[in-house]
């Protein structure tokens, strides 16, 4: 759906030319949720703006569907953009228009017939769950609601691609999850290709299929999310992984680098649900005769069950590991493989 080949873009800062995107090649398949993660200044904002031609590249090629963005003129890009939706960190709504009028704006630009606009706007408002707020102004909405308007506006012209520019970075964790769920629902419902850039590991883990890690204008690592984060190769990727653990209050006491990968896969176990019992792990150790090592975590008992997270290292082959995790899953303990042993 989206192909980038050896894309370069630099900005003039005084007399020096600073590369923002430095030879990036990517291939994003139709219907995928593709994440680009990087720290600020890594060039991801420029990268996403190159895809819809808001920034013009210096060299390389970019195609979106049939359109050669790198060769298209401004008029051709304008005609193509309604089919490439975009949402923003700061929502970028028109505060002088109501929710409904903001969504209608995208339709007006695309030249929709006046009579068709109200019906489509009502559909979109329902899709993003803003019924009853049609006539509110953006200043009367919460951050999450504003982003819902942004999403409705971006989807108004039934795009094939949705570009998300740090779409959840200005939201609190709970709202972030609600917006991410909405995005992944839209992805499933319409088969929409989503490209999102973020500096939050959590976002990638939660909804992305594929991820590219960006640093200093280059893609340092790319692939399926589970693969990339199970076997981080680059320093940046490892830093992001530590960020994820730190976000859960683990960073201090669990140093990922200090964990000897030879000792087995690093797994995060989440106790949730009525069957989760602390004893389940002991059962697994006995059942599989494996010396499972508890690294860190906190599990507290409620009346019915145990809740919390446990970081453990399981010295087992891939197949055996699957069996162990299945055993735990039956007992309402979810698992997440964070790191695997590196095979020489």
């Amino acid at each position, binding site marked *: 759906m989206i192909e980038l080949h050896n894309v370069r873009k630099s900005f003039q800062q005084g007399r020096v030319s600073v590369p923002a995107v430095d030879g990036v090649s990517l291939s994003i398949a139709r219907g995928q949720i593709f994440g680009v993660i990087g720290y600020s200044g890594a060039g991801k904002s420029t990268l996403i703006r190159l895809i819809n031609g*808001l920034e013009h590249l210096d060299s390389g090629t970019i195609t979106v569907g049939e359109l050669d963005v790198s060769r298209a003129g401004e008029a051709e890009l304008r005609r193509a953009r309604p089919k490439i939706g975009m949402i923003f960190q*700061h929502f*970028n709504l*028109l505060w002088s228009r109501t929710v409904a009028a903001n969504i209608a704006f995208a339709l007006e630009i695309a030249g929709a017939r006046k009579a068709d606009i109200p019906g489509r706007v009502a559909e979109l408002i329902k899709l993003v769950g803003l019924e009853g707020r049609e006539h509110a102004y953006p*200043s009367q909405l919460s951050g999450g609601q504003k982003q819902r308007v942004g999403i409705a506006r971006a989807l108004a012209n039934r795009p094939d691609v949705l570009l998300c520019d740090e779409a959840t970075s200005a939201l609190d964790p709970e709202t972030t999850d609600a917006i991410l769920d909405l995005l992944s629902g839209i992805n499933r419902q319409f088969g929409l290709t989503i490209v999102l850039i973020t500096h939050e590991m959590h976002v990638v883990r939660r909804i992305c299929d594929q991820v590219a890690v960006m640093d200093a204008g280059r893609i340092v690592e790319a692939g399926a999310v589970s693969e990339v984060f199970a076997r981080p190769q680059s320093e940046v990727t490892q830093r992001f992984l530590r960020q994820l653990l730190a976000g859960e209050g683990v960073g201090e006491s669990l140093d990922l680098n200090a964990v000897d990968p030879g000792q087995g896969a690093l797994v995060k176990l989440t106790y949730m649900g009525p069957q989760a019992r602390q004893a389940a792990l002991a059962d697994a150790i006995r059942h599989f005769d494996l010396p499972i090592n508890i690294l860190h975590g906190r599990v507290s008992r409620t009346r019915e069950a145990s809740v919390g997270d446990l970081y453990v290292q399981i010295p087992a082959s891939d197949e055996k590991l699957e069996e162990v995790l299945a055993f735990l899953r039956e007992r309402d303990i979810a698992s997440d493989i964070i790191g695997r042993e590196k095979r020489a």
Partner: protein
Amino acid sequence: MIEWLFPNLRLAQFWTATLDTLYMTAVSGAATFVLGLVLGTALFLTSPGQLLANRPVYGALSLLTNIFRSIPFIILIVLLIPFTRFVVGRMLGVNAALPALIIGAAPFYARLVEIGFREVAKGVIEATRAMGGGIGTIIFKVLIPEAGPALASGLTVTLISLVGYTAMAGVIGAGGLGHLAYLEGFQRNNGDVTLAATGMVLVIVFAIQFAGDLVTRILDKR
């Protein structure tokens, strides 16, 4: 009561002068709004970092704006005499004041428009481009509505300046309340006429300020 307070005031003349002032303010105000909006939009769009950034054009427009904004109004009227003769045909009466009023006020309003547009979030313009919006959409559906309150409060300030300008223009023959206060009041030593004219100018200014604030508040949805 009025005759006792203002013994020398002829009401018909006072009323005509008031209408003349209102006429000059309204016509020059409308023209200033349109011209200032065009010039302000051009200033904004050609300024560095904007959509049509163009250093030479911006420099030229900016210089022109600053020159006309800096010339004291009373001198501007004199300088514009040949131009006014050519356009209006004569140098007396309310219409003769219009060219100077418009040329004096439009550059001032243009700067206020430019400042108002700068307050519009850059991200909104970017979002409009991302939806496929062109320059026309950006001007008419984003910049002008989003800067609405700033445009309205700027126009209020400009209209109040214009009321002052019409008084100055009146002294040199344009008619209106300034003319009345100076010729009928000051030169004939009728203090009461000057006072009545001043009072009416104040009423007009307060009314403009009140209406302007009201419109600004209605437009402001932030």
